[in-house]
């Protein structure tokens, strides 16, 4: 039996034999949440509740070591071990490896998976997203982090916002649902009258640590959530700095808008705002059709704004969160690969600033077509497409640097602190950007690309490439460095620049999925852990896969087989040796004086 939430049950003679949550095969969106802080006095281990059970557990383990356990006992021992192991506890850990992955499936059911062992902590079929007479074809669209309490982490639970729609078209009414991340209970459910064409999470939070969101409907009105006067105050404070851009792929137009004022409508709604058109970039529809867009992740952390090249030369990265990467293909080439000849196919990529509409960089690849998969991180974009002339897939990298800061070369200005490199920058100042790019051949076809992200952004990045074989390859970003040359000089080799080859190497050991396959791979999500060297990776498709990867190996923690005993023994031996030799030397001194 297939249930409404896409779970399967086998019912025999009125009894459920097994049930399986198959809704997890259609994950639509993923977000993460931290687990509760470990409180003192509250025992987290629920295993040791009953003394009898504890004794029984120990007896089973003893039988296991003595090899007289039956297969049932072995299964029970395994279950005990799994339940009480470190990685499946329900509290935060020091390295930030234990988190909750909150996934929204197509059935409208929200699951919370524990990153330690992947078990379902809670699951909730949202009542607001169930089929009813009010809502004919509900579909869940996105899930956002709503409230992440930092200051009140011990009292309040984080919550997430689920945005859904009651029908397949854009003009269907929207559904909002706020869910508690620890218990899965629906805190609030709203069915506002407006539609939801886009959701913009703003970088501001109010005093209860709820993040402000603007939901934009298809009439270009923005509705502010949470609907509190305090949120309006915060928005009014930052009114002139909030912009919105819309990508119209059918007509090939990208428009930028700024917040204007409250809506002019019959009913006065002070949480509704109007936009004013600022700029528009119109792509010629007879030669270009938008096939892919990509932006940076909003919560990405960049460690430093300078990149040191060889010979102590410094270039400043153009790190702006308001950049958009657009890939346009020739209209004939917008279909399947191989339906067009190379002379009629080209791929044009743009990097736009979405506040001013300025085109910062444009490049044309002749004889190439999509589908284009791209990832935008820090100041670089890596995108993957098909080269018809060479009959191979290609990956290109574009890195953007800010030339207007490059005349800060005097050391004394830095020593005395008289530079303006950390003052806030505006997109309206004229940036002189230069872009460096390079292309390489790549043999695999790609389903998804993502870059690793860490807590402080210090660790070098790896690109996680979900291949057509349903495996994930971790490719070091150093292979996609525009500074690569065929014969690097000695200084460049010391810098770590790999000599240029025409194709990217696929090292079989760098598949993070090892021998497994993530069937029907659809998306890759990376989450930073608290430990700087490690990044958590969640891959979803029909199968779900989770792992921790350390792109530069774990340089900030001791190895697991570090012998603390040897260290202690050495220290004790050295202290003893110091004491003994001190006594001996004192005695010798005394004897010399008495001679």
């Amino acid at each position, binding site marked *: 039996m297939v249930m409404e939430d896409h779970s399967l049950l086998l019912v025999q003679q009125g009894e459920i034999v097994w049930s399986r949550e198959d809704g997890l095969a259609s994950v639509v969106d993923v977000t993460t949440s931290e687990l509760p802080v470990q409180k003192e006095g509250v025992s987290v281990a629920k295993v040791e509740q009953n003394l009898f059970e504890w004794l029984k557990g120990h007896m089973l383990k003893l039988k296991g070591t003595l090899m007289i356990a039956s297969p049932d006992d072995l299964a029970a021992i395994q279950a005990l071990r799994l339940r009480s192991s470190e990685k499946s506890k329900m509290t935060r850990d020091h390295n930030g490896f234990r988190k909750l992955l909150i996934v929204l499936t197509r059935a409208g059911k929200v699951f919370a998976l524990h990153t330690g062992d992947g078990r379902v902590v809670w699951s909730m079929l949202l009542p607001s997203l169930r089929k009813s007479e009010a809502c004919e074809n509900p579909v869940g669209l996105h899930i956002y982090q709503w409230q992440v309490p930092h200051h009140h982490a011990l009292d309040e639970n984080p919550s997430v916002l689920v945005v859904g729609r009651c029908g397949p078209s854009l003009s269907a009414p929207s559904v909002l649902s706020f869910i508690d991340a620890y218990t899965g209970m629906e805190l609030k459910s709203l069915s506002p009258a407006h539609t939801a064409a886009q959701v913009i999470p703003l970088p501001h939070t109010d005093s209860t640590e709820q993040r402000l969101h603007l939901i934009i409907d298809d009439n270009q009105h923005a509705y502010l959530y949470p609907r509190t006067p305090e949120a309006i105050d915060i928005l009014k404070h930052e009114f002139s700095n909030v912009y919105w851009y819309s990508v119209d792929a059918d007509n090939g137009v990208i428009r930028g808008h700024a917040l204007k004022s409250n809506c002019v409508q019959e009913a006065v709604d002070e949480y509704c705002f109007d936009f004013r058109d600022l700029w528009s970039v119109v792509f010629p529809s007879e030669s270009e059709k938008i096939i892919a867009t990509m932006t940076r992740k909003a919560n990405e952390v960049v460690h430093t704004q300078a990149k040191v090249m060889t010979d102590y030369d410094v270039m400043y990265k153009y790190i702006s969160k308001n950049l958009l990467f657009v890939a346009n293909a020739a209209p004939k080439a917008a279909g399947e690969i191989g339906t067009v000849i190379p002379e009629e196919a080209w791929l044009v990529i743009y990097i736009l600033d979405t506040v001013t509409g300025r085109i910062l960089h444009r490049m044309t690849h002749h004889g190439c077509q999509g589908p284009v998969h791209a990832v935008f991180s820090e100041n670089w974009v890596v995108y993957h497409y098909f080269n018809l002339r060479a009959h191979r897939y290609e990956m290109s990298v574009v890195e953007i640097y800010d030339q207007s800061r490059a005349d800060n070369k005097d050391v004394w200005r830095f020593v005395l602190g008289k530079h303006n490199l950390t003052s806030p*920058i505006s*997109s309206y100042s004229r940036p002189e950007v230069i872009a460096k790019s390079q292309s390489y051949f790549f043999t695999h076809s790609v389903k998804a690309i993502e870059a690793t992200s860490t807590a402080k952004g210090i660790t070098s990045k790896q690109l996680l490439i979900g291949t057509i074989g349903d495996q994930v390859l971790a490719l070091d970003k150093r292979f996609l460095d525009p500074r690569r040359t065929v014969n690097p000089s000695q200084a460049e080799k010391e810098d770590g620049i790999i000599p240029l080859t025409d194709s990217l190497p696929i090292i079989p050991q760098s598949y993070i999925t090892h021998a497994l396959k993530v069937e029907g791979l659809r998306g890759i999500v990376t989450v930073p852990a608290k430990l700087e060297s490690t990044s958590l990776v969640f891959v979803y498709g029909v199968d779900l896969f989770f792992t921790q990867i350390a792109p530069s190996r774990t340089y900030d923690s001791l190895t697991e087989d570090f012998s603390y005993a040897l260290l202690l023994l050495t220290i004790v031996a050295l202290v003893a040796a110091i004491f003994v030799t001190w006594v001996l030397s004192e005695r010798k001194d005394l004897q010399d004086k008495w001679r």
Partner: protein
Amino acid sequence: MDKGKGVMPSNTRRWAVDFSDNSTSPSSRDVPDPPGFSRASIDQDDSTLSRQKRDAESNWKAQKAWEVAQAPFKNLLMMGFMMWMAGSTVHLFSIGITFSALWQPISALQSVGKIFEPYKDSRVELLGPKLLFIALNLGGLALGVWKLNALGLLPTHTSDWVSSLPPAQEVEYSGGGLNLS
């Protein structure tokens, strides 16, 4: 024989004569003074002798002080050679040599007073040697700092200072994209 026995009861040897006896009374010795010899003149020779001795002492002290002041020069040359042998890569040996080249002048400068203590004299001008000592040690320190710079450990380039700058904050925020499908 009688005379020898009676005069110096503490002297155990009969025939030993103490030549350095500076006593003024002529009768303290059993050997009579030679004719024309007056004891009083020995006193005058005493003071000149001691004056000469003191002169010799202070000359010797001054000479020694200048020698001590010039000792760091040899040290400098040896340190220079060892640093040249250490090479320009950052290894344990080169770091060790550089830091000992930096530490030796500093510790010598701290103990300037103690080094020149034995040569302290009211008639010896110690300022000159001391200044030379200090100057040579500062030269050694400069050599150590130069070596540190040659190893690339001094923050003399822009890249040393700029790598710690956090990214600048952006004033505007822009969101949006394709419509949710």
